[in-house]
């Protein structure tokens, strides 16, 4: 669904592979650096849309590398580190990194930050419109269309529908849905989710869709 390519620069093989798998599952193209002697020319060759950069690398440290990359490219860089203090964060940002995440990270948060950074950097190219058959979701406008009818969604409803459409056909548990919403700064509780779900269903029904979101008792929601 998106064609962005993420380059992972991380010397710990397990973390590298797991990150790659996760990002691929999330729909990104990935590339990894395995030789750390000459990362810079690898970066040039790979020409990624975003770089995940570990600070602690053999031969060269992440700060220097990020400065070197910045000299020749504006590619967004997220620095990943297990050092956790204000000084490191400032240093990374000053050296041209766009974001800073500390280990051990939560994958939901990592994905949310990557998405946000993509949105910020490639705002014109990013797909602001998501479609599912005749149903069209315009994220920028916060509206959903079905045949010629339109419904305006609230922020919560928009996020819920977005997630369900992205994971069409799979059952999303209430908890997973809430974790996703929390990772986007929407701190909803159980009741709020139910209310939002009901409202969203009603809006979709108004558009003329019958049973848009199914509830699987004890499991979660699914959109077909």
């Amino acid at each position, binding site marked *: 669904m998106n064609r962005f390519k993420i380059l992972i620069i991380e010397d710990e093989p397990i973390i590298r592979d797991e990150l790659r798998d996760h990002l691929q599952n999330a729909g990104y193209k990935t590339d990894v650096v395995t030789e750390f002697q000459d990362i810079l020319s690898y970066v040039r060759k790979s020409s990624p849309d975003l770089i995940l950069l570990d600070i602690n690398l053999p031969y060269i440290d992440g700060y220097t590398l990020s400065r070197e990359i910045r000299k020749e490219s504006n590619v967004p860089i997220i620095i990943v580190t*297990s050092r956790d203090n204000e000084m490191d964060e400032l240093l990374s940002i000053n050296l041209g990194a766009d974001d800073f995440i500390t280990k051990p990270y939560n994958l939901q948060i990592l994905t949310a930050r990557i998405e946000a950074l993509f949105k910020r950097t490639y705002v014109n190219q990013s797909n602001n419109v998501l479609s599912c058959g005749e149903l069209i979701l315009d994220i920028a406008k916060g509206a959903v269309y079905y045949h010629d009818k339109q419904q305006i969604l609230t922020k919560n409803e928009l996020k819920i529908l977005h997630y369900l459409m992205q994971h069409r056909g799979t059952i999303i548990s209430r908890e997973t849905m809430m*974790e996703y919403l929390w990772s986007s700064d929407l701190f909803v*509780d159980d009741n709020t989710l139910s209310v939002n779900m009901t409202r969203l269903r009603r809006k979709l029904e108004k558009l003329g869709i019958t049973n848009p979101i199914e509830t699987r008792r004890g499991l979660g929601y699914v959109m077909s």
Partner: protein
Amino acid sequence: MNILSFSHEKLPFLLINVVLFGLFSIILWKIHISFEMILIVGLAWFVPLIIAYLLEYGKKRRYYQHLIDYQESLDKKYLLPEILERPTFLEGAIVQDAIEIAYKQMHEHINIYKREQKDYQEYIETWVHEIKTPLSSAKLILNNRDIDYGVIQELDRTEQFIEQVLYFARSNNVSEDYLISKFSLREVVTRVAKKNAKDFIYKKIKLYLGELNEMVYSDKKWVEFILNQIVVNAIQYSKKASSEIQITSTPYDNKVVLQIKDNGIGIKKKDLPRVFDKGFTGETGRTYSKSTGLGLYLCKRLADKLNLGISIESKQNIHTTVFLVFPMNKSLLMEP
């Protein structure tokens, strides 16, 4: 030191001289020496003596008066030997030399400990840094394979304890490991909320956030750590049903107060004054058997270092509220 106490000390010697002179004058008088002559001998005897004493008094008074003045005015009393001038009289010089040697040795001695503590702190920092790599790997592996069974939550708790170690090491007196910057309360609160998202969601705890628009000056990471400890406590001591945690802020003229309120099991009145003590778990902590008595102690210690106020109010079975007070310096705020 005054003339009275000084002469008091010299009194025995003077008295001996007076007695000796008395005996001597009796002998002189017996061999028919004239009264005038005896008086002259007396003057020759006592005038130099008294002049010598006065000179000595002058010298000593200067030195000891300095000693007392410095001692009283010095903030760090142990620095005394550094600023005291060398005395011009013998005993003073001997004592001063001895004190200086002792001072130098003590200095070296303390430096050894300082170095050791710094080494240890650096080791802890490195260790924490290293342990996070396998921890990250483990979490990533579980995440990618959709295996959970509560393991991730246990890893999160492990991570929390590791953070505690790090901040404990940073909170000692030698360390100056913080950086004051301007940030919004919402930013920090949001980060902490996300960090604990799983707990909130699975334990069905409602989170209510106020506007939190205020900007404060402090070290962001330290504040995040303090806030996280408070929130973790609030989650841990929540009741089974309809739990809620409210995080709100109130601006005042010269401070901003961040308030974290839960409707959990609360703290017993008699335990309340001691919750910030090291190792204090209280009855609640012991019943729940998870408490180490370190969380709030560390919060207090870090808050003190950052000049933040921290206090706690509670009513058993009703609520616990923690207040975090950020002082706002007006002169700082007026800067562009």
